[in-house]
């Protein structure tokens, strides 16, 4: 099972801070083990940069197993890279060819300003969540768990929607920089559960208003968001959000 190590050229976005203009710079990484993850390859590159008194490339990451939502870059034009249903940290170098140049960019969207290199500010998502991404209950003041029956279908569908990790790939992939999939997923998750119904109208209203205020664009049904979502959240979430929004407006 001897595997041949490969050489990779990384053309990566370097930007000092939000107010400085960025540029692409190309680096060579030799002796890349195909079993390496993409981020481990960047680690190796950064170690080389540090040793050569250069400045390492900043990129967000944490759990490195596809669940925390912290990592996220555009690889060769696709948010989270070539393979569907995965995050950036799950991308493996065996997906690239020996001698290939890989283009690496940050999420590009007005509501996600670049902090440095590949790191962007996604606090807009937190502000949207603060407007209604919850069920208003107090600690302790809740009914016994079994008193709320949830049909299995609803629980399963709610789980599908709750799987969103808030990485922002949907926004990065959308030509309008819309956050509709992100908001739709949360509105759907909570709206599908009986516990979430009482404040469904208020929730969708406030979250959508905040989404617009943050400068996210409108959804025009391109479906790019669904294609890059590492948790494969369906755009039915957006349809459900629209229905809820309409219901809130007329009811």
């Amino acid at each position, binding site marked *: 099972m001897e595997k041949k190590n490969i050489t990779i050229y990384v053309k990566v976005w370097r930007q000092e801070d939000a107010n400085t203009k960025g540029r692409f710079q190309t680096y060579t990484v030799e002796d890349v083990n195909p079993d390496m993850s993409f981020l481990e390859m960047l*680690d190796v590159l950064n170690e080389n940069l540090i040793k050569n008194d250069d400045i390492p490339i900043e990129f967000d990451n944490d759990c490195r197993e596809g669940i925390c939502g912290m990592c996220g870059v555009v690889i060769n034009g696709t948010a989270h890279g070539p393979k569907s249903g995965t995050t950036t940290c799950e991308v493996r170098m065996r997906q690239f060819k020996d001698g290939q140049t890989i283009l690496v960019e940050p999420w590009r969207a007005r509501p996600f300003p670049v902090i440095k290199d590949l790191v962007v500010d996604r606090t807009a998502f937190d502000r949207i969540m603060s407007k209604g991404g919850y069920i208003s209950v107090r600690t302790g003041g809740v009914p016994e768990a*079994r008193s709320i029956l949830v049909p299995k279908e609803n629980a399963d569908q709610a789980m599908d929607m709750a*799987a969103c990790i808030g990485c922002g790939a949907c926004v990065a992939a959308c030509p309008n920089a819309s956050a509709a999939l992100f908001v739709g997923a949360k509105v759907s998750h909570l709206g599908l559960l009986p516990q979430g119904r009482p404040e469904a109208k208020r929730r969708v209203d406030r979250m959508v208003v905040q989404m617009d205020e943050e400068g996210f664009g409108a959804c025009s049904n391109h479906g790019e968001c669904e294609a890059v979502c590492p948790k494969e959240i369906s755009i039915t979430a957006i349809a459900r959000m629209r229905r809820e929004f309409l219901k809130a407006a007329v009811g």
Partner: protein
Amino acid sequence: MKLDSKVPSGPLAEKWDKHRFDMKVVNPKNKRKFTIIVVGTGLAGASAAASLGELGYKVKNFCIQDSPRRAHSIAAQGGINAAKNYQNDGDSIWRLFYDTIKGGDYRAREANVYRLAQVSNNIIDQAVAQGVPFAREYGGLFANRSFGGALVSRTFYARGQTGQQLLLGAYSALMRQVDEGRVDLYPRREMVDLVLIDGKARGIITRNLVTGEYESHVGDAVVLGTGGYGTAYYLSTLAVNSNASAVWRAHKKGALFGNPCYVQIHPTCIPRSGDYQSKLTLMSESLRNDGRVWVPKKAGDKRHPNDIPEEERDYYLERKYPTFGNMVPRDVASRNAKAVCDEGRGVGETGLAVYLDFRDAIKDFGRKTIEERYGNLFDMYKEITDEDAYEVPMRIYPAVHYTMGGLWVDYNLMSTIPGLHVIGEANFSDHGANRLGASALMQGLSDGYFVLPYTIGNYLGGTELPKVSEDHEAFKEASNEAKARYDKLLSIKGNKTVKEFHKELGEILWNKVGMARNEKGLKEALEMIPKLREEFWQNVKVAGRPDSLNKNLEFAGRVADYMELAELMAKDALHRTESCGGHFREESQTEEGEALRDDENFSYVAAWEFKKLGEWELHKEPLVFENVTPTQRSYK
């Protein structure tokens, strides 16, 4: 210093209720006058910050990530325990309490563990009300499963994302308080020191990770929910940013450190494929339900596993433990894997792996059944290793996963520094010397939702807390010290990177303070660690600038702290000459090679007081068992 656990008197089952009644309650009108600093936004930190905000306190909540939702609690897959007995299989608060204290090898406080079992049920109620989508059956009620060798089905789960979903529940409650103006969020901030005024915790210094500025935050109490210290080992299953710096700063300011040598090593991780790797991936231990663990009988046997005939395979767990076989607890499975690899019988390119073979399970139950049970894990394995575990055996190896030790706290979750409270994995309190599966989530949320919000009121209501401001000398001093530390790291401009130092430290810990420890190795570690630390401060090379986002600098600060903490871990491991839970001393084993406790001499919590670098004083909190009788574990 006399350690007072503050465990209330009275029968075990009534202690918590009685204590809640006896504690002081802060007048609702006065609550808004108190500011509470909560560091960390994992299950413990987020649930505490949200609950304190609801109660009316002013809360400042800090995290190192870009959003509170990223905390490493999200990575827990398996589930959360509760004593609901929904499956009618004989579970009870008492049974959960008993399993937990026994699982911890009788090195935890009875009263804390009983309270944990009591509030476990409230946690499930809370999470369900928040909309956590636990698995359901067709009747709309809960699906539960048995986990980690428990004899009852008490584990609640949300697909493979239980930690993520519970954290999103706590995060949602937190964001509601942010909207209400009760909680101020400070993301991308790292706590770099704790500030004491008149001996009480009155604030923290943070480094703004985007601008590099040092910021002072005043509070009436400080809560640390900053997780464990497993990353000291370099290779672990923890997130790459998980670190011990907040607890270490507090320790150096006077908070005692409890049982630093208690570390859990998980047996079913994907082995590392190369030197470049710093993070290992855990696979659910449920795999051991059907997989058979083996290595070749002959050392150095490099044949393809499928070419090794049955009679030349050693199913060592089944051979040594006929009753439990492949299902022995985590520590036993891990230790045995290390032993066979040490004999030169390890497999794979590095020789640091054992096989977990599903061939027989596929033969017995059919591939479809195995796909249904473990399909996602087999997919993940393939993704990482490029190997098909339906065709060739998986390779697994143990990795550091959780630390039971942490800052010492009393029954009120307060450290030895008045006002400094410590919750979740960051404290030492509930798991003794070994943590059971699906119990970490339970403890984090128990502390944050149901214990701390009451006990902190008792402190605030009964303590003189004169008004202080950021201009106080103590803040300036701590801030200058922190800045000097980071400036120094940048100024060394040596020849070895932070990562190289970290890796070297990790190797010392793994080899000498890892799965099996002995006097000789620990003494060697205690010589090597201070030397490495000295070299670090003379020869480390840190890149970049102090006044901008600089992850290499953040990392350097954390590794600098591991260099000190590692010494204490080795010191604690050396002093505890018994074996218990995750701490296995080769000198203390039964004839069959099992961990042998020494209750007569070691039935206590080892709480270490920092004197100066490399020097600590040991304090002991005796553990008294009035309700259970410590027994020797046996899995034969």
